[in-house]
């Protein structure tokens, strides 16, 4: 009952993340963050890691959240799935968002659950009319139930579907137009997908609904190759942000203005100062964003 009240009650306007750089919060860094209080714009956590009853994750997130703005980033809602949304998972999300009141909540244009199994990866969707209708229904339901706008992240993909009738940018533009959701522009995913599918990354960014961008993600990728030997980039989050991605980030900033930017690192987690240095690099680029670009989104 209390969970339903969250969706049904008056919706307070959530504060927004500052137009600064943040990093993903990792258990390896919990204590050091509290001990050293680094100057940072925000932290981001994966929602599902905190869907447990108690213990150290909640202990530290509670204390860190008191000191920093917070973004909660879901990886398990399966918005692109063929079946209905998992109500139990939506309920867990509602509880988590009520507990931590994050400035931002985001999820992925992907699916991860099917037939009662959770596949633990962000899987691709065909860009066709049926998928568009279903994704929009799911996002409508999420935003209505959680009583807040969500950001949808553009995917990193390795295959395309013969069934697709829209380009990825057209598909995302239509989702944003129909649901009013925001866009989490993952610049690394843009780079990875554009290399993997022979697209022009700058033209792709230009075709996105840039007015809707509420957050930017930057991360590292791994390099593999496809069956013809063409490069196939893997969205591994296990290395520093690549130079090509920093350049694409600068290109995006010129168009969207200063937007809260996350350094994502989920594998081979380095010492905290290494991530803070990457965040400072992003912040220096944010500070250089021309005033007119900034005012365009204000």
């Amino acid at each position: 009952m209390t969970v339903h009240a969250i969706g049904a009650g008056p919706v307070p306007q959530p504060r927004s993340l500052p137009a600064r750089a943040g990093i993903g919060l990792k258990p390896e860094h919990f204590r050091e963050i509290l001990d050293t209080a680094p100057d940072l714009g925000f932290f981001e956590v994966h929602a599902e890691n905190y869907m447990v009853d108690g213990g150290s994750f909640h202990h530290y997130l509670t204390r860190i959240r008191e000191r920093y703005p917070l973004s909660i980033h879901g990886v398990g809602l399966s918005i692109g799935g063929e079946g209905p949304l998992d109500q139990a998972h939506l309920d867990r999300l509602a509880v988590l968002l009520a507990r931590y009141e994050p400035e931002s909540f985001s999820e992925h244009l992907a699916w991860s659950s099917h037939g009662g199994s959770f596949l633990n990866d962000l899987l691709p969707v065909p860009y066709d009319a049926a998928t568009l209708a279903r994704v929009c229904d799911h996002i409508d339901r999420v935003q209505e139930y959680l009583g807040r706008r969500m950001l949808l992240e553009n995917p990193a993909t390795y295959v395309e579907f013969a069934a697709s009738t829209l380009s990825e940018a057209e598909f995302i533009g239509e989702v944003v137009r129909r649901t009013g959701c925001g866009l989490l522009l993952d610049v690394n995913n843009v780079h990875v997908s554009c290399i993997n599918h022979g697209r022009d990354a700058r033209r792709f960014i230009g075709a996105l609904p840039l007015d809707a961008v509420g957050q930017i993600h930057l991360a590292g990728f791994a390099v593999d190759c496809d069956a013809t030997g063409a490069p196939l980039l893997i969205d591994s989050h296990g290395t520093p942000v690549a130079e090509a991605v920093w350049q694409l980030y600068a290109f995006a900033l010129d168009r969207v203005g200063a937007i809260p930017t996350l350094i994502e690192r989920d594998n081979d987690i380095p010492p905290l100062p290494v991530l803070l240095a990457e965040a400072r690099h992003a912040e220096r680029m944010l500070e250089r964003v021309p005033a007119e670009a900034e005012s365009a989104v204000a």
Partner: protein
Amino acid sequence: MNADFAAALLAAAPACPPGLVSWNGSDPAARFAVYRNNVIVGLVDALADSFPVSQALVGEEFFRAMAREFVCASPPCSPVMALYGEGYPEFIETFPPATGLPYLADVARLELLRVQAWHAADADAIKEADVATLVADPESLPEARFTLHPSLSLLASRHAIVSLWAAHQAESAATALAAVDPALAETALVCRKGLEVEIYRLAAGPAAFIALLQQAASFGEAVAGAFAADAQFDPPATLALLLRAGAITGITISRSAES
């Protein structure tokens, strides 16, 4: 479409679902293999994180091959991955190549309880003074019932699971392991104190006593049961252990018999 994709992700042999294309005409199967690898390696990694001692006991290569068979047969049923691995000890128990290590499944059970304790609900332990007050009141004491910490669990094994687990926490696991006789039966108490999960080895008396408390027996009933299990049972020492473990979170006293 999801069904074909999902089935190919977890198929025993590499497979590729229909309907996939690539911009350069390259075989989509090689690209699909990235997803298959992400899913399987990610789930195997999750098990390796949760069952480090089980992995050390059989070696990384054996553990990952065994885990791979489990994840393809029993993928998670929830996006809350922290608790993935329920059913893995039972899988190990019936995995033919692991029959040479009869204690492996119980060590995995202990590791699963440890993970569950790590994420269990928070509750404040009562203070020593609260128990001292109770013990000083011999009329109330037998009727007292203890609420135990949500993280607390017991695991009785025919094998030396606590010693095997503890040997892997030592600086030189090989030396510590050489001193363990795996065939000795042990009972483990798992309980989180603050943020740290502790594992204790229990004698038969304390094991029976705590098992009865878990079933909401009164202090008197639990003491009687513990003496029946072990004539050497030492109630004060066992209470002291429970206090030290932060295992008691509440005391209720009711003089009338409760059902």
